[in-house]
């Protein structure tokens, strides 16, 4: 039971890490390696609001999330649009954006170092035990998981229950065909990229309530997000959520039953297995 709950809590936090990248990679076709830095920027925003304004870190979402949306929209319009225009094929776009966002990630780290300094950022928020079936769990983690679940739920509904969402799915499946049915592909791609950035920054706020961050930790989250997105199937919100939960449960089970030293190995083993047997991801469509 402990394993189940701890694993679900961990999985929920993983899902929020991966959700932004799913949108950015799946729909806007930008393999954003600066994704983790956006997350850290969100976390720093929360830290600042909590320590300087003594408000709940979740209150920072009011500024951070719209701010991240606008910033990512600008990044897409100014930095990435030229690459999208130039790209002759999807493969070429991926290579170009990987290089461009890899460079961006360094620039972000540098800017954050300049603004916030290089130290550790950590604060205590709701670090109290909360009992589920008699065993204690961190209240901050429980709240974080609920918020993550809420965000994922909203996104899922947005993508599967609204007209814009349907258009987004159409672009994810086939940008060329989507354009034929009067979907404004460039505008939707920019929107998805910006939305992905905003969700990632929100993830940063959530994680900052229980993780210690520093300016250069972003790459850790980028790696996790990449694994999850590829495991779940590119551009599939549902796949990303399920992959996150599987990863969370597997890591916790291995840590508790076998050895905590093997959690990373377990995560990568799962990743390799998925790649071997379902290279398109758990919910991905087999390309013909």
């Amino acid at each position: 039971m402990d394993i189940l709950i701890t694993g679900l809590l961990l999985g929920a936090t993983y899902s929020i890490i991966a959700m932004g990248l799913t949108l950015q990679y799946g729909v806007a076709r930008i393999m954003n390696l600066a994704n983790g830095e956006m997350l850290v920027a969100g976390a720093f925003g929360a830290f600042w609001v909590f320590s300087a304004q003594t408000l709940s870190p979740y209150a920072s979402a009011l500024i951070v999330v719209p701010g991240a949306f606008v910033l990512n929209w600008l990044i897409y319009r100014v930095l990435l649009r030229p690459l999208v225009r130039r790209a002759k094929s999807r493969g070429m776009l991926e290579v170009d954006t990987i290089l461009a966002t890899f460079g961006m990630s360094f620039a972000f780290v540098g800017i954050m170092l300049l603004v916030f300094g290089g130290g550790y950022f950590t604060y205590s928020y709701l670090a109290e035990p909360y009992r589920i079936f008699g065993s204690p769990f961190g209240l901050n983690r429980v709240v974080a998981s609920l918020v993550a679940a809420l965000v994922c739920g909203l996104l899922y509904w947005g993508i599967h229950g609204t007209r814009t969402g349907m258009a987004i799915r159409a672009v994810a499946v086939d940008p060329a065909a989507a354009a034929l049915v009067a979907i404004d592909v460039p505008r939707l791609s920019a929107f998805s990229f910006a939305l992905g950035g905003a969700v990632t920054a929100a993830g940063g706020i959530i994680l900052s309530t229980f993780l210690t961050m520093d300016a250069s930790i972003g790459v850790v989250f980028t790696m996790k997000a990449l694994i999850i997105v590829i495991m779940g199937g590119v551009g599939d919100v549902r796949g990303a959520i399920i992959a996150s939960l599987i990863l969370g449960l597997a890591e916790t089970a291995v840590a508790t039953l076998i050895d905590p030293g093997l959690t990373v190995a377990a995560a990568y083993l799962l990743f390799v297995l998925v790649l071997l047997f379902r290279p398109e991801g758990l919910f991905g469509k087999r390309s013909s």
Partner: protein
Amino acid sequence: MASVLSIGAAWAADPVRFGAVAPKTGPLAAGAAITHWPNIQLWAQQVNERGGLRMKDGSRRKVEIIEYDDRTNPGETIKAVERLATQDKVDFIIAPYSTGLNVAAAPVFAKHGYPQITATSITDKIPELTARYPSIFFALGSTTALAGSVAEILSKLRAEKKIGNRIAMVNVADAFGIELAEASRPIFKKAGFEIIYDRSYPLGTQDLSPIVKGAKASNPDAFVAWSYPPDTFALTEQSRIEGLDVKAYYTAVATAFPAYGAKFGKSVNGHLGAGGVNPDTPEMKAYFAAHQKVTGKPADFWASAVTYASLQVLEQAIEAVGTDRKAVTDYIKKSDFKTVMGPWKFVNQSIDKFWTVGQWQDGVFYGVASTGLPGAKPVITKTGW
């Protein structure tokens, strides 16, 4: 006329140029931003405010620092040290940050004959390294001494009937954690302790609750974690949530950081950790105040002052014998120094009196065990969270 010229020359004396290589990005950047870089800033500022280094011939020379970011990558550290020595042709190079990066750069320092006074490396390889590299110096201590002191503190508490025999031990699966876990296993056994829970976790683990749950389930008297900064914070928070109630609670690196005390407040009273200082000496009081004033942030309670002291050693040696690197190295080997850490003398190129264990007591992280330093506070037991 000649005297006017020489005064003019003294005024316009070129600065002594120092190279500095350490992480500004990468996994160790945050630790370096707390312990390493602020002290270089503080030292350079203080020396220049005084008018510069007071050279043998009576002239004053300011210090100039050339900084490189090694991105926490040993290859980059080596390249940057090489560059400082051959391209920038600096007079001296301040030792890098952390055990790994210092050891990686040691051959390059030695090749170009630069003294390397390390203030942030802990290793049991000091005899081998000092035998191989005649210009390397160690000031923070050895792995075995660190583990040994923890065993001594626990033995003392056991002798006072405050704790029993059962230790839960965890370590981060990284060079530092592995070396300490391996060094401490036989030491704890020899001291008659029973290690009832012994696990490692990978660096960067996001969820340490399975570890803390496991440790708690083993029902220990003492909890020892050979941990690194992010996991030190995470383990402590998780232990508090799980209610891991032990009388002796030890986490390694970062326990001495002011951010640790700030984050957990009163609940860390009685926590043991690596390092410690004696903050009550007049030198240390002045040092803490200056650190806060010049860098805008507090010094940590372990390697910060050691880093500053290592720069004082360099300063006093240069003032005594000039910028000849061979002469400076020889001077460091056999002279006495006055530092913020008290009097220092290198024995076989290493400082043999250093703090090993500290403890949070009423908001300050005091040294409670050392290899022969005065001013250790008595140990207290931890009482709940």
